[in-house]
């Protein structure tokens, strides 16, 4: 942040920076609190993204983190073409958030998953409130498996100049990683271990409720670990094996999303660039128009041409992105999963594939359990 103070646009950025710093100090919620996204302290308006805290080595125990595919917001049912772009963003942006978390080198495995599940101790959910290529507003909530809400932030980001590549956009998620770190460090070592153990037990309970229902106390507002099975418990070993299979699915999804970033990223990036340039041009145009009397001067054609050309260029870019986004939206690649004795092809939307795979894993687990009995 100190380096930010030295940049020439200090006057512009200082208020934003102050809000951001105040936010850092005040918005980390206690576990039992539910942070209000409308609370000013939870809003991060970021023109210059924070510097990412990078750990020399992960804090142990380091929790795994699941980043759910972003919610497209209240207009999800809309059929308008822009929703295709929004849906594309909902799958591209989680990858950038993961990039920021992985770069911080302080967490366990970070995976992008179709939906929140008890697979990992920490889950990140986000909703795209607004996105027009220049302005991006996201509501981000981080919670752990015990029900504790780590933080709730509204990220309001405006890109002032087109960046060199799409990965630069992951910098807006530095603030999420930094605050998660602050929260995690504020927990005692026992609390941290407990979160990870509860996640293990809840996953086991989702497969075998009868066997694993007594390890976690869920009578209070927060889940609490009562006890743990023996480390050599055979049932627990099988749960781990099933869990590894679910990780495999997530890795396959991850790979798909990585490919999506490769295919759609450049076009999305061009659309953002065009949007930023045109929005900046419009800002300049509006300020010029405000400072002169309308219609004065001899540049009538230049005025009209600039206005029409900007609109035409914007629409061409937008339509190219819509087409790509719609093509990608309708295209849900089958995931081929290999188990020990079978190859399973999952089809449909990612959500459906994930639900099918989880159900298959549960059936496999029950079959194996039956054999034991």
């Amino acid at each position, binding site marked *: 942040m100190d380096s930010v103070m030295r940049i020439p646009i200090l006057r512009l950025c200082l208020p934003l920076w102050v809000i951001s710093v105040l936010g850092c100090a005040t918005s980390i919620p206690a576990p039992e609190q539910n942070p209000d996204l409308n609370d000013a302290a939870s809003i991060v308006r970021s023109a210059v993204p924070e510097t990412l805290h990078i750990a020399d080595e992960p804090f142990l125990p380091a929790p795994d983190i699941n980043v759910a595919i972003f919610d497209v917001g209240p207009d999800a049912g809309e059929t308008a073409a822009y929703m295709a772009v929004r849906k594309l963003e909902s799958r591209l942006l989680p990858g950038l958030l993961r990039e920021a978390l992985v770069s911080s080198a302080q967490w366990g495995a970070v995976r992008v998953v179709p939906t929140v599940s008890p697979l990992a101790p920490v889950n990140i959910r986000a909703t795209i409130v607004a996105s027009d290529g220049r302005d991006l507003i996201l509501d981000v909530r981080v919670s752990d498996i015990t029900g504790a809400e780590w933080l709730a932030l509204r990220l309001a980001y405006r890109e002032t100049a087109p960046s060199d590549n799409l990965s630069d956009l992951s910098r807006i998620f530095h603030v999420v990683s930094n605050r998660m770190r602050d929260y995690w460090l504020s927990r005692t070592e026992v609390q941290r271990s407990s979160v990870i153990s509860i996640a293990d037990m809840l996953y086991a309970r989702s497969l075998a409720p009868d066997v694993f229902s007594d390890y976690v106390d869920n009578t209070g507002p927060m889940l609490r670990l009562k006890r743990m099975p023996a480390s050599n418990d055979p049932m627990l070993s099988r749960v781990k094996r099933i869990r590894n299979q679910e990780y495999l699915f997530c890795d396959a999804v991850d790979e798909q999303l990585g490919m999506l970033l490769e295919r759609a990223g450049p076009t999305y990036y061009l659309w953002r660039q065009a949007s930023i340039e045109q929005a900046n041009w419009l800002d300049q145009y509006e300020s010029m128009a405000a400072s002169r009397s309308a219609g004065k001067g001899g540049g*009538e054609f230049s005025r009209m041409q600039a*206005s029409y050309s900007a609109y035409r260029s914007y629409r061409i870019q937008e339509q190219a992105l819509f087409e790509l986004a719609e093509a990608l939206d309708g295209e849900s690649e089958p995931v081929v999963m290999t188990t020990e004795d079978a190859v399973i092809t999952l089809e449909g939307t990612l959500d459906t594939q994930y639900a099918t795979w989880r159900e298959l894993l549960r059936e496999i687990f029950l079959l194996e359990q039956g054999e034991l009995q």
Partner: protein
Amino acid sequence: MGFCRALTGCSLADAVYGSRWFISRLVVGYRLFLTALGFSAGMLGCSSSDVQPVMSNVPPPDFSGYWEVDYARSDSIQNQLNSTFREVQREIRRRNESAEKGSPYQGTRLGDVDTLFALAKMAELVAEPTLLEIEQDTQWIRIERENSFALICSLDVTGDETSRLGREICWWDGQQWHFVIQLPDGLNVAHRFTRSGDGNSLAQRTKLSDPRTGHDFVISQVFGRYDPTKRGYSCIETLSRGRVCTTEDVDLE
């Protein structure tokens, strides 16, 4: 009328200069007055949108296919400009006559003549696409225009998309497709598409208006169907001679 002929080939500065010279000969002493008068009237808010966007229940005919402009049946910008200019001349003459008689004149507003010429030049830009590819189904129409953005409209509801760079409204009125683009500086571009009864011709009427001038600039283009796979010639890339094009063989069967 040299500047009119030059309008399609010369720079804007030349065209504007030519127009100013011509007008100055005709309306010595009146130009400032008319400009101020027109501008004032424009500021009072003269709307050029004369059609209400109401979606019709009548199903549209099939517009789909490939269309190319038929120059023989289309307006030329130069002719339209000449025509508009003659109208301006007549208007000025009527005003002169009224002024000489000392009676107040209640004719159409002239507005800023520079803006009118700018509209004409803009019409060239807006009506530039000579090839259209139209896709249509029971719910949507998409008019893909060469080197420009596509005009897309739903049959269910009146389309209305607004951004900071402009607003686009579209609808089917039972006979024509309307696409209206309103830009933030006041320029209004309205396209109407009509298909002939036999389905072989498509008419596009483009109207440009601006609150700073009392005259709209209208240009009509007629398109005929074409088969993009049969252009009368074919080209191949060769290693030694680069791209080589030959006329296609006439199919005698």
